[in-house]
């Protein structure tokens, strides 16, 4: 038994990819929607156990593993693997209440695509080589498109959104592939090649990294490359919004942060990469904040809010310091948890997606209202929430690096968030319910994960020492252990 556990532990990264893929394959044999959901939940629970165990062992000082199979864990990778797997587990469990979003026969496919997406994002978080990384990101993206498209049965708008995802992501995929090839040509096949030696062709490596970052920024919904997010988030159902918003966007940001960490560790290209990140970050702070203020669709509003947060993440990463990467890790985690609470809470709105569907939610569905409120407060960066913690860390890192204006960027995001998140809260508590109805029987499963996320958004904000210590440790090992 002990040997078996040790074997599992030794191959934890491989299992992080393999288990969801195995679960996806089993979906083909699932007779119906409920069995598919149960299978997906079990698969994700097993994967999350492996991920949390790996993270805890590394946090307690266990040596990093080198497991082969093209995988190589590092600080950012293990953090990403753990957070996105745990979020995906919550999504899978909560999805039990959203089975009606799909035809009976389509549900297993939706879960299979979701598991493939998770497996591929995990592979991107743990991949050792640039080519493997690019392949994993593209696989995850295509699976995400599939999840969005499967919602087309109930709302044809989801098809339009999926089409936009596909075209924007397809172009980004082309950029990612060329970027990866250029980086391999300029530096070497593995991510560590950037840190272990002077790149033989730094120009090619810098250009390649720039292309990869642009491609990943598009997939993470970073402005101005976020045109796909509005149509896609706006019309996919609750499950799609959770899969794309709480997992897809978050995992893409982690992937972006991971390659950035390697690039910033290579002096020959660090400055160029920092400029790219900074430019994208500043744009992404401003434009989506303005769009979110005017948004009339709950999920679209959340997508724009996420893009604005992503801008802060990029500014943090552009700092290039361990403090900056730690701030970015905290912010992405905060974003994932807030998205989980917001989208999970909004799932009780069913097919309704206008802001007016939130009117009087506190009376109709108090627990949903609680989740939405916690998510909105965290997005707003209200004190004592995880969102505030992320922003404070960015300001600290920015001021520490002499980037005073980074505090200005945070203020812009927070000010805009006061308006749009405040609007959500006002509608939830101070409006009378309109025609929109809460989906019957939805609360039982959907709200569990959303409430867990809401509790985390507030609870970790109150006692963040463990999270901050872990983020600092992960950021210090952003490019893996010293050779």
């Amino acid at each position: 038994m002990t040997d078996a556990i040790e074997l599992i532990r030794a191959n934890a990264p491989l299992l992080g990819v393999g288990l969801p893929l195995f679960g996806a394959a089993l979906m083909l044999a699932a007779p119906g929607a409920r069995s598919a959901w149960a299978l997906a939940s079990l698969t994700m629970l097993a994967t999350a156990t492996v991920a949390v165990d790996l993270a805890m062992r590394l946090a307690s000082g266990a040596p990093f593993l080198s497991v082969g199979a093209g995988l190589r864990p590092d600080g950012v990778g293990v953090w990403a693997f753990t957070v996105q797997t745990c979020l995906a587990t919550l999504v899978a469990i909560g999805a039990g209440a959203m089975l009606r979003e799909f035809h009976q026969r389509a549900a297993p496919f939706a879960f299979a695509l979701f598991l493939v997406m998770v497996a591929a994002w995990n592979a991107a978080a743990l991949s050792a080589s640039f080519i493997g990384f690019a392949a994993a990101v593209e696989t995850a993206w295509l699976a995400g498109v599939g999840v969005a498209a499967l919602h087309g049965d109930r709302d044809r708008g989801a098809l339009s959104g999926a089409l936009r995802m596909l075209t924007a992501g397809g172009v980004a995929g082309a950029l990612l592939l060329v970027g990866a090839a250029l980086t391999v040509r300029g530096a070497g096949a593995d991510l560590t090649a950037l840190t272990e030696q002077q790149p033989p062709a730094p120009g090619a490596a810098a250009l390649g990294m720039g292309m990869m970052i642009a491609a990943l920024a598009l997939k993470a919904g970073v402005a101005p490359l976020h045109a796909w997010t509005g149509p896609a988030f706006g019309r996919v159902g609750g499950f799609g919004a959770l899969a794309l918003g709480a997992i897809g966007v978050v995992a893409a940001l982690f992937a972006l942060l991971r390659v950035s960490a390697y690039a910033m560790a290579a002096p020959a290209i660090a400055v160029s990469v920092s400029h790219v990140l900074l430019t994208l970050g500043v744009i992404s702070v401003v434009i989506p904040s303005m769009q979110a203020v005017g948004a009339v669709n709950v999920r679209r509003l959340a997508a724009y809010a996420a893009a604005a947060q992503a801008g802060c993440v990029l500014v943090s990463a552009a700092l290039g310091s361990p403090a900056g990467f730690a701030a970015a890790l905290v912010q992405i985690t905060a974003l994932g948890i807030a998205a989980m609470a917001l989208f999970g809470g909004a799932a009780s709105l069913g097919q309704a997606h206008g802001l007016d569907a939130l009117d009087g939610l506190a009376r109709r569905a108090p627990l949903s209202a609680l989740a939405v409120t916690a998510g909105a407060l965290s997005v707003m960066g209200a004190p004592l929430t995880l969102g505030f913690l992320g922003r404070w860390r960015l300001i600290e890192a920015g001021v520490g690096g002499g980037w005073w204006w980074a505090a200005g960027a945070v203020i812009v995001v927070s000010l805009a968030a006061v308006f749009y998140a405040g609007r959500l809260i006002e509608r939830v508590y101070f409006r009378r319910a309109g025609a929109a109805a809460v989906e019957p029987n939805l609360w039982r499963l959907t709200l569990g994960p959303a409430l867990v996320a809401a509790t985390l958004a507030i609870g970790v904000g109150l006692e963040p020492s463990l999270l901050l210590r872990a983020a600092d440790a992960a950021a210090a090992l952003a490019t893996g252990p010293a050779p």
Partner: protein
Amino acid sequence: MSVEAFGLRAEIALSIAMLMLGAVMALTSGNAVKRVAGVLVAQIGAVLAAGVLLGGDILIVGVALMVATFAIAAALIVRAQERYHSVEMRDLDKADIESEPPEPSAS
């Protein structure tokens, strides 16, 4: 510069040009089929560029992703035609807007 090196650069330039052309087509065309065609052109350019730069394994990865993209794109276009009775992006937007009020743009 040797003829071989020049040839290599020309091949890369041609591939990148193809990628850019495809990208413009994919992001600006008003027809969903043309957009998908643009994506495929861009990806073919990318695969060619990557093949020229590295050769070997990356071609397999690129082609596999291209095929997957094409398969999903084809399915999406068929479904869009069934549900919207059109593959013009303008018609799709119009139908979507009719079922939801527009929102102010950022600009």
